[in-house]
């Protein structure tokens, strides 16, 4: 490569590009595998096919079957193997086809991955990433649409992440792979191609545990994460045409989560509406609501609003109306504003 070509390549590499969320995932994996030979990627169908959603497309061709490979159909083995590899010094990134299939791997996640560092007094650790598509909106019925993040946020030792933009997906996944802790990385599948945005041409990471303010506002804090984020934006748009100034916050990480940013926001706006598509009972947003009333009770001008999924198994035919869409979100905001 000539010096001129190299300079041109560097220039090209520094140009920001607009890509979709799944491409961001693929790019993050590609770049991390290039950077560190300890990074290996496996799961069901991730090799030649590139995964059911094609998140790993082309990676086996680039990095070979030793580093990108299909395993037997066994979530317990996929997660368990990731634990054993991490203990031995690799940086495994395991894919579970759908978050709904994590059940058989659940014990490996909560009993092995989450506790390895603690129970061994720091003698061992399990720095691994489990990537899995989650959430509804793709007509998948209850075995392809659930939002099980709360099970994992309830287990100390795990980090739980769910991006909603290509920038965050790429930066957070890189941070997850480079980190020293086990990370459950939920990818909102309905945003894989629907969410487009700019990513820098250069290497970057997004710190796990920091929320993002998507738009600033002064009347109400609208807080969500993952697949519902575009609906929060739509609701905020609708309210702004009515003259309401909405602050939209994307949590991005659930454990650890950015309590400080949320509390500061609610102290400023006086109202909070929390949105997620997971069933309401034991929903992670219950934790957010507790934190707000604990730290910003005196600032509250209205009860904290919550829009969640219903406490039923995710229905197939009623897919769209199950999800908290812009209308339901807007209505909750209006209720808080009119209190």
């Amino acid at each position, binding site marked *: 490569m000539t010096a001129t070509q190299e300079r041109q390549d560097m220039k090209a590499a520094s140009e920001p590009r607009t890509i979709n969320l799944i491409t961001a995932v693929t790019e993050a994996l590609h770049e991390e595998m290039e950077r560190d030979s300890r990074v*290996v990627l496996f799961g069901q169908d991730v090799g030649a096919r590139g995964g059911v959603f094609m998140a790993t497309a082309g990676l086996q061709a680039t990095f070979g079957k*030793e*580093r990108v490979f299909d*395993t*037997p159909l*066994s979530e*317990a*083995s996929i*997660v*368990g*193997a*990731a*634990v*054993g*590899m*991490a*203990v*031995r*010094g*690799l940086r*495994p990134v395991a894919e579970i086809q759908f978050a709904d299939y994590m059940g*058989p791997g659940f*014990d*490996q996640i909560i*009993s*092995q991955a989450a*506790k*390895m*560092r*603690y*129970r*061994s*007094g*720091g*003698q*061992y*650790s399990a*720095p691994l990433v489990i990537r899995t598509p989650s959430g509804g909106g793709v007509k998948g019925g209850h075995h392809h649409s659930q939002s099980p993040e709360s099970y994992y946020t309830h287990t*100390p*030792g795990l*980090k739980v992440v769910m991006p909603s933009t290509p920038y965050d997906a790429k930066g957070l996944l890189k941070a997850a792979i480079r*980190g*020293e*802790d086990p990370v459950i990385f939920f990818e909102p599948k309905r945003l894989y191609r629907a969410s487009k945005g700019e990513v820098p041409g250069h290497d970057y990471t997004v710190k796990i*545990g920091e929320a993002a303010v998507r738009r600033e506002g002064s009347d109400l804090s609208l807080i969500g994460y993952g697949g519902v984020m575009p609906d929060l934006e739509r609701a905020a748009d609708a309210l702004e045409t009515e003259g309401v100034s909405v602050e939209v916050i994307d949590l991005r990480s659930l*454990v*650890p989560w950015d*309590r*400080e940013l949320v509390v500061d926001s609610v102290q400023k706006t006086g109202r909070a509406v929390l949105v997620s598509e997971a069933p309401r009972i034991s929903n992670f947003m219950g934790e957010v609501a507790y934190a707000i009333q604990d730290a910003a009770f005196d600032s509250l001008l209205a009860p904290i609003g919550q829009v969640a999924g219903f406490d039923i198994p995710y229905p197939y035919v009623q897919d769209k109306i199950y999800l908290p869409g812009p209308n339901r979100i807007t209505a909750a905001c209006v209720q808080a504003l009119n209190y």
Partner: protein
Amino acid sequence: MTPAQINPTPPVEALPTPEIQPFTAEPIRYVAEDGLPIHTLPAAYTPERLRELHGVMLRAREFDRKLITLLRQGRTTFYAQSSGMEATQVGLAHSIRPGHDWVWPYYRDHTLALALGVPMFELISQVLGSNSDPSRGRQMPHHFAARKQHFVSISSSIANQVPPATGTAMAQKYLGTDEITVCTFGDGATSEGDWHAGMNMAGAMAAPCLFVCENNQWAISTNLRGQTASENIHIKAKAYGMPGFYVDGNDIVAVMEVCTHAAEWVRAGNGPALVECLTYRVGSHSNADADAEKHYRTREEVQEWLGRDPVVRVEKLLEHLGHPIESRERADMIAAVHRDVDEQVIRAEATGQPDWRIMFEDVYSDMPAHLREEAAMLRAEQEGERK
């Protein structure tokens, strides 16, 4: 187990050497229950060597006995004995290169740990949850980890060390090392989904993992017949495309020979193997079911297995070879272990208990804000109480 057919008439040297074949109907055995060799002993088993092995086994036996005393004195809360299983664990240890190979153990493996060179002081510290516990008092007694010996942390969930062991073996293959992984479990573990998942994955991935079933025939109160309708455990290996070996787990020579053979086979890049060591848990599952004989097994059964005691078998063998361990010598050895344990207990107890401040450490690589806050809250509470 059918008692070995003994014919003491021909000289030992004239007996055939067994070929270590997988999938045998009867467990492979070198030394009969009365201490007579059934086959020519491999040359390595000199009387000196056998005495050494006997010493390790006796030490583990007496360690168990002392720790039960400690439990009865209320100085610890839980203990799971491995008495009766010494030949299995000490024998297995000899096929493992400590600090080179990796071990994913189960919770009854302290004899294996001792045989691999984990210091007794560390084990006692862990059982006591003292400040000298390398696991920092985080797990209940007996669930230790020892980094130096590559002895990975013990989990209480049954069989969930099996898929990770497969993963460690896969990593070894990826890294191109000559290490192998050894994964142990009891007979009960073979009923768990994780066992089948991990075995299957290891087979499919040709992972260099040696699986060892310490079949002590009881998973708390469920016996082997209640556990599986399978003829035995080792034949299950066939379903996962690996060889399965069946060995008399109370015969240390047989365990060493078979485990070494299987380990070498794994080390040579042939993929995983399973060894079933048929042995017996002489004591209760733990102190929680100390009345085992009253509830789920007969005194006769225990007596029958006491007759197959692996420690006594080596003593009988040595006697047969003309190198008996004199009763005075044996008593001295036992007394030395008891003294040793007593000293280590005093030493471990003297280090005190881990400070509550460390409770929030090692959850993550860095302490997140919410844990720092909880730690501060507890500090205020603890220090407030002290005032």
